[in-house]
């Protein structure tokens, strides 16, 4: 067993060491220690399943040694792997210590072999994947596409409650609308005054005030009230100005007015 291993070591020193030096120059091309191990393992020219992990460990350690001699900077994970492989190597070479805990050298070696095989398998699978016909390279999608027009139809809705609330909103707003004189049914004193100034010139004799009410204002009670009040107020105003005289026979008797003759003054 020991001899067999030495033999492998010797073999390593012949051809593998040359290869290892070639690898060192290109150390940047490796994607980590596992990749380096996989590359080194190819020099064994055997199926990965039959690979000698011990020989591989030696190759790797020789590689790291060489790199150190050449003062090449190796990334930390390469050195971690070297330490681990040195440990693995010793485990594989020394007879198992029954007192020692943890996995055996064989178990560790088997796992490393598994990792290498798995990485190799992934490499091959990646190659197979990339070798497949690819969209946009070997087969193609539709060149003239037609967009699906999204026609969005909006449907509006409302409930009876919305309607009632809406109406209520308007009606309450009405309640609180600022008070505005209903001018359509109201005659102001100014209007009456204006009217009477024109008419008074012809009133030489006593005339009932009601005859001064404008046409069309006597039918509707509201209008009649408004125009009567306005005309009466206007009469008072005119009397105050000295333009007319007012008289009333008794309470609730018709009020009469006539133009005041200037010469009477």
């Amino acid at each position, binding site marked *: 067993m020991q001899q067999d291993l030495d033999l492998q070591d010797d073999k390593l020193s012949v051809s593998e060491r040359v290869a290892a030096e070639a690898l060192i120059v290109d150390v940047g091309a490796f994607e980590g220690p596992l990749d380096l191990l996989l590359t080194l393992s190819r020099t064994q020219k055997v199926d990965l399943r039959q690979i000698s992990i011990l020989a591989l460990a030696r190759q790797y350690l020789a590689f790291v040694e060489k790199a150190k001699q050449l003062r090449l900077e190796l990334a930390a994970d390469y050195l971690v792997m070297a330490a681990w492989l040195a440990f693995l190597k010793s485990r594989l070479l020394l007879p198992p210590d029954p007192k020692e805990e943890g996995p055996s050298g064989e178990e560790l070696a088997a796992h490393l072999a598994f990792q290498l095989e798995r990485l190799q398998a992934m490499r091959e699978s990646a190659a197979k994947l990339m070798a497949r016909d690819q969209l946009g390279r070997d087969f193609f999608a539709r060149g003239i596409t037609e967009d699906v027009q999204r026609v969005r139809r909006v449907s*509006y809705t*409302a409930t009876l409650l919305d309607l009632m609330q809406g109406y209520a909103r308007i009606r309450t707003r009405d309640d609180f609308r600022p008070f505005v004189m209903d001018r359509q049914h109201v005659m102001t004193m100014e209007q009456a005054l204006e009217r009477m100034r024109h008419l008074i010139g012809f009133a030489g004799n006593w005339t009932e005030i009601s005859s001064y009410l404008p046409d069309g204002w006597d039918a509707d009670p509201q209008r009649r009230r408004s125009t009567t009040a306005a005309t009466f107020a206007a009469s008072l105003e005119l009397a105050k100005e000295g333009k007319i005289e007012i008289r009333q026979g008794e309470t609730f008797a018709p009020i009469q007015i006539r133009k005041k003759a200037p010469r009477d003054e």
Partner: protein
Amino acid sequence: MSKPENDSLFEAPPMGEQERMVEAIMFATADPVTVQELIGRMPHGCDPAAAIAHLRKRYEGRGVNLVKIDNAWAIRTAPDLGFLMQKETVETRKLSRAAIETLAIVAYHQPVTRAEIEEIRGVGVSRGTIDQLIEMEWIRFGRRRMTPGRPVTFVVTPMFLDHFGLETARDLPGLKDLRAAGLLENRPPPGSVGLMDTDDVDPDSNEEDQTELF
């Protein structure tokens, strides 16, 4: 694509193959393809014009057709299937406040002219609001008012009554009912303009409303 000189030595692919080629090219190119272009892209000795003729026949009556556009050819959706290129989504939205108020006024005051709606609302009514309600078939034109200008009036439709579960517009709850339901109770704080805006900010009064109502 530079083909070697000795292409002529090879026989042109069978017409079935040429048809496949034209089909693939037409499918994948982003623009209509001319016969000239096809000659340039297909193997030497091909007769794209003949292949197009075959392919055109093959697509006759199918979901897509081979059509000539100017001087070029393209695969296009059959005209009768254009409707499939539209996807209709229906979205339900609440009617705007202006529309609800306008609708309410038409319902309570019909027949009513636009000027009257505006007078009642105390604010202008946009053409769009009226149009929307007409389009929804909730209001329609009534008879013209026999007043100067002969303005059109609006009335609610049977669709409206149907939607709101009313037999006639007279079944609409009256102001008294609204008041009883608490809908007219809200008194505005002095000086505030808007009233009764349930969709509005004052959360308290809103809350009250809700409690009273439900």
